[in-house]
């Protein structure tokens, strides 16, 4: 265990623990955009900037990203200095210029006093802040169907060569974990479309309601050893089946 200071409060932590985790445990709020507990931090969005110094730094301080900065003994962390607030504001100014379509960014920007953003470079509908949550989630936890493609201003998240992916299993984890809802998908009846590919949702073997794409069931089956068909019963029918099983058990 080590001791450090966050906003004037002495706190304990494990050496190397990330500042964001410590701050959250202590109830200190730090805004984040690219942070997701399920994947390693990447330091992509810069919203979590805090100012750190040490007693032996003779007054010098530096800005670091709290999400991936490791704690060390006697570190002094300040989360709301003028420098921090100004930096976050500038980051939001750039983000809002890139993503005029994102409500979340607009709201955060307003919180930092940016009521009338002056700069717009992105398309008006653009929402993606390139935080990489979706790509980290897909690559580390699912099948690795999407990544960042192209460079510079052309950079975007997509399938390789923006072609229809045969690796994607249609689980929607990318879309659902996106902080700005930038990933579009559509689900109508037994069809789900994402990244340009339409998946057939297998109808429940008992009532016909949509369950999940066959591709996701196969992927799950490989990981868990359950039979693919076992996934093709909807929740309602599974619960009803459980009730019937109970009924048949002699008490």
């Amino acid at each position, binding site marked *: 265990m080590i001791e450090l200071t966050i906003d004037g409060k002495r706190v304990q932590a494990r050496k190397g623990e990330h500042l964001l985790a410590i701050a959250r445990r202590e109830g200190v709020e730090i805004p984040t955009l690219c942070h*997701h*507990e399920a994947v390693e931090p990447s330091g992509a969005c810069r919203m979590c900037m805090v100012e750190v110094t040490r007693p032996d730094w003779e007054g010098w301080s530096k800005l670091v990203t709290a999400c991936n900065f490791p704690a060390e003994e006697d570190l002094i962390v300040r989360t709301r200095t003028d420098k921090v607030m100004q930096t976050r504001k500038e980051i939001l100014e750039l983000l809002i210029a890139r993503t005029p379509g994102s409500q979340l960014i607009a709201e955060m920007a307003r919180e930092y006093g940016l009521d009338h953003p002056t700069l717009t470079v992105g398309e008006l509908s653009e929402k993606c802040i390139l935080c990489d949550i979706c790509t980290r989630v897909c690559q580390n936890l699912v099948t690795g169907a999407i990544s960042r493609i192209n460079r510079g201003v052309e950079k975007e998240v997509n399938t390789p060569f923006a072609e229809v992916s045969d690796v994607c299993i249609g*689980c929607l*984890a990318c879309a659902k974990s996106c902080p700005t809802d930038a990933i579009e998908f559509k689900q109508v009846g037994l069809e789900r479309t994402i990244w340009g590919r339409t998946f057939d949702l297998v109808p429940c073997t008992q009532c016909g309601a949509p369950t*999940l794409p066959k591709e*996701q069931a196969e992927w799950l089956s490989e990981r868990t050893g359950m039979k693919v068909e*076992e996934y093709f019963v909807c929740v309602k029918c599974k*619960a009803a089946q*459980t009730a019937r099983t*109970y009924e048949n058990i002699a008490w």
Partner: protein
Amino acid sequence: MEKKLLHVYPQRCTACRNCEIACSFAHPIDGKAGVARIKAFGDKEGRVGHNQIVVCMQCEDAACVSACPANALWRNPDTGAIYLLEERCIRCHSCVAACPFGNMRPQADEFPSKCDVCGGDPACVKFCPANALEYK
């Protein structure tokens, strides 16, 4: 210390579904009632003592836990119940597909929901007028 368990006594259940309502309100989404994690099934023929209560059994070797790619399902060391750590969940709904008993329930754009025995003070138990649920 022995861990408490949620006991169900379907013989006593009147299928009034108070437990479902209590559960919904104990797990709200944006201030509105959430999806109930417990379900009372009234007997089709209305026979007394034949209703059924379906709720997570907190399986030892749980299908939801092994299906989750994000390690978002954890066993609470205090209650022994499995709960969903929302910060880790990527909402792939694999757990919903995996639970063979229908006890992991989807909620449209939200995190799936499952019984977490309310962290050790289950609301359903308190609201069951027929004493068909006990936590002991």
